[in-house]
């Protein structure tokens, strides 16, 4: 039956002129690419920062004259000062967590793919969509600006715990305008994320084309939808937190600053605030944030796997989706596990520890579904599948670390050791990055109409996979020995024996970083020189593959799309998927 008929009314006409087309564009595809590019730039900035940190940790006396040009105060003569190390650490965390991991899989791919996957011509509120990108962009510029202002970047970590972050210059270097800009930058990011989440929710609910019932949504769309709800509620709490922090710094209030603080014998004027209040409000956002980062990854993996193993997931869309809903809900009731030793009421520690352990159940369900979907499958080892498999392995490893940190008793030993660093790099860091890579290799042909180079892609995967394990598994291990995180040098007697191990980590990290340039080269080269991509190179079954690569301005070239079955519904037994675009729309 004919699935594609002439669309009654074209949603809106393509804009004219370079600016409206590529800069201040309201087209969700352009905005999606803008977000992806922004986070790509941010990712390499963040990686450069981690390189500088790892070099300093391995060879504290190393001279990097180039960096002394970039930051004369931070790196006099090319040797890093302790405070500058902390600044790099702070900005690495901030840029990676917000502008890469939160932006790329959700705002980047989501903006580009969600409307096409539901068969819409654009997001529900295109202008709002443009606004959220440019607000994010300003936020990123502010974050980077902290490196060039005289006060220098903040050094109180991406969590910006007060009073260190709140009392201002008295608390030492990096507490001047750098910290203010940080607060403003994150506040802007909150606003952008809230607008984005709003847009995602309304788009998913209101703009689904005929036949695209909720039960026929691709899992990636489900993930973005669920994630939009989580961000909507989480960022709504981070926004006031940032505002109150800035108010403490610039308005002289004392929300987070208690009485009787003394810096170099000077008594501070503040009184009556509580640092714990900030920690609570921050982690109220901060823990859902971890899942805001990982839920799109769940979606992307569940979306990509069936295509390359040539069969639907076990249990179809339902099980994974309900697991994601459970994870998203539980993610709000566990934030206190970041605060077990922070002076929080020890009874609350129990209240937070139990749900933290129970959140493993839906996560385990999702992992089991992915793993057991491989049983009797028919794998096609293209780069997206490799990265998906890599994601599963990394996510299992990362999740395991959670058992140790979810219990206050064991956490009271492992808290603030490199075990924690390894753990969250595996879970929210590298798992999400691997899913982002998988999505990039999978959707690049659709986004740019060119195929990426498979050989380079596979090389990129192998090196990254080994690199990740050698860096962050080693961090888990040194954590058992009590190696403390956020140290710019190892002066403690018990840290000295770990210096060789840290050298190993540094070398591995440098190589891991270097391999990312293979990816960068592959992306840029293929963008212009890669072979032309067909409409549906992978034989996938969702709507984005039923239109051109890249899609026309209104996504389906003025055609009205009607959907007759879900992405994972086949007649009878699982079988190799159809590779004709009709299959995705009309079924067979």
């Amino acid at each position, binding site marked *: 039956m004919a699935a594609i008929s002439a669309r009654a009314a074209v949603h809106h006409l393509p804009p004219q002129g370079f600016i409206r087309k590529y800069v201040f564009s309201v087209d969700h595809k352009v905005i999606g690419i803008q977000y992806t590019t922004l986070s790509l730039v941010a990712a390499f900035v963040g990686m450069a920062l981690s390189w500088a940190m790892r070099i300093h940790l391995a060879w504290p006396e190393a001279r990097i004259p180039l960096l002394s040009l970039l930051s004369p105060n931070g790196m006099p003569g090319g040797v890093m000062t302790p405070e500058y190390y902390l600044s790099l650490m702070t900005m690495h965390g901030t840029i990676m967590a917000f502008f890469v991991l939160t932006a790329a899989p959700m705002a980047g791919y989501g903006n580009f793919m969600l409307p096409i996957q539901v068969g819409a011509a654009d997001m529900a509120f295109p202008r709002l969509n443009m606004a959220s990108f440019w607000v994010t962009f300003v936020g990123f510029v502010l974050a980077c600006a902290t490196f060039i202002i005289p006060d220098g970047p903040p050094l109180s970590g991406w969590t910006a715990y007060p009073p260190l972050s709140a009392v201002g210059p008295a608390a030492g270097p990096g507490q001047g305008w750098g910290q203010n800009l940080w607060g403003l930058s994150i506040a802007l990011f909150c606003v952008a994320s809230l607008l984005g989440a709003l847009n995602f929710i309304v788009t998913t609910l209101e703009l689904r084309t005929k036949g695209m019932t909720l039960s026929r949504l691709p899992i990636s769309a489900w993930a973005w939808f669920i994630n939009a*709800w989580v961000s909507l*509620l989480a960022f*709504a*709490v981070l926004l006031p937190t940032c505002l109150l922090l800035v108010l403490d710094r610039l308005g002289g209030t004392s929300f987070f600053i*208690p*009485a*009787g603080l003394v810096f170099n014998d000077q008594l501070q004027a503040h009184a009556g605030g*509580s640092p*714990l*209040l900030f920690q*609570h*409000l921050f982690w*109220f956002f901060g823990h859902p944030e971890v899942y805001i980062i990982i839920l799109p990854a769940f979606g992307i993996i569940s979306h990509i796997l069936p295509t390359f193993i040539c069969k639907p997931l076990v249990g179809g869309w339902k099980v994974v989706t309900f697991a994601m809903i459970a994870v998203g809900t539980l993610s*709000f*009731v566990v934030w*206190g596990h970041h605060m077990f030793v922070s002076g*929080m*009421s020890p*009874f*609350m520690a129990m*209240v937070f520890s139990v749900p933290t352990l129970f959140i493993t159940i839906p996560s385990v369900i999702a992992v089991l579904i992915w793993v057991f979907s491989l049983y009797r499958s028919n794998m096609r080892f293209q780069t997206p599948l490799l990265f998906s498999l890599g994601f599963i392995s990394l996510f299992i490893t990362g999740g395991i670390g959670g058992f140790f940190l979810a219990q206050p008793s064991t956490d009271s030993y492992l808290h603030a050791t490199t075990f924690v660093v390894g753990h969250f790099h595996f879970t929210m860091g590298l798992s999400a990055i691997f899913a982002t890579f998988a999505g990039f290799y999978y959707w690049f042909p659709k986004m740019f109409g060119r195929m990426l180079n498979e050989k380079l892609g596979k090389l990129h995967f192998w090196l990254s996979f080994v690199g990740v394990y050698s860096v962050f598994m080693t961090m888990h291990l040194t954590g058992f020995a009590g190696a403390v995180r956020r140290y710019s040098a190892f002066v403690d007697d018990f840290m000295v024996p770990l210096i060789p191990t840290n050298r190993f980590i540094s070398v591995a990290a440098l190589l891991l970083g270097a391999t990312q340039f293979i990816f960068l080269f592959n992306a840029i080269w293929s963008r212009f020189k890669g072979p032309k991509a067909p409409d549906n190179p992978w034989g996938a079954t969702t709507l984005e593959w039923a239109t051109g690569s890249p899609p026309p301005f209104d996504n389906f070239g003025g055609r009205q799309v009607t959907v007759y079955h879900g992405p994972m519904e086949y007649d009878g037994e699982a079988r190799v998927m159809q590779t004709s675009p009709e299959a995705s729309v009309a079924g067979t």
Partner: protein
Amino acid sequence: MSSNRELTMSSYVGIGAGLMLIVGIEVILTYQHLPTRTLLFSLLCLASLEGFVAVMYLMHVKYEQPILFWTIFPATLFVLFLLCYLLPDAFRMASMRLLR
């Protein structure tokens, strides 16, 4: 669906008057010199009642699809309930303060 013809304007005026009345009761309660916690509790109950009426009638959720009600209330109350988790530490702050 966006129709609020279920009520006449006069009944809306009545609702407005009722809300104003509740505010009046709040003010009267305030000057009964109740213990702070009792006052806080009763004020919050009355305010929640007002809020509920406002959402159901002024914002006529009552006449929308039930699912709208079941989306906005659980989501918001979930967050507000969880924010109560902060309070044990507030009391801790009062009892364990360093400088008295």
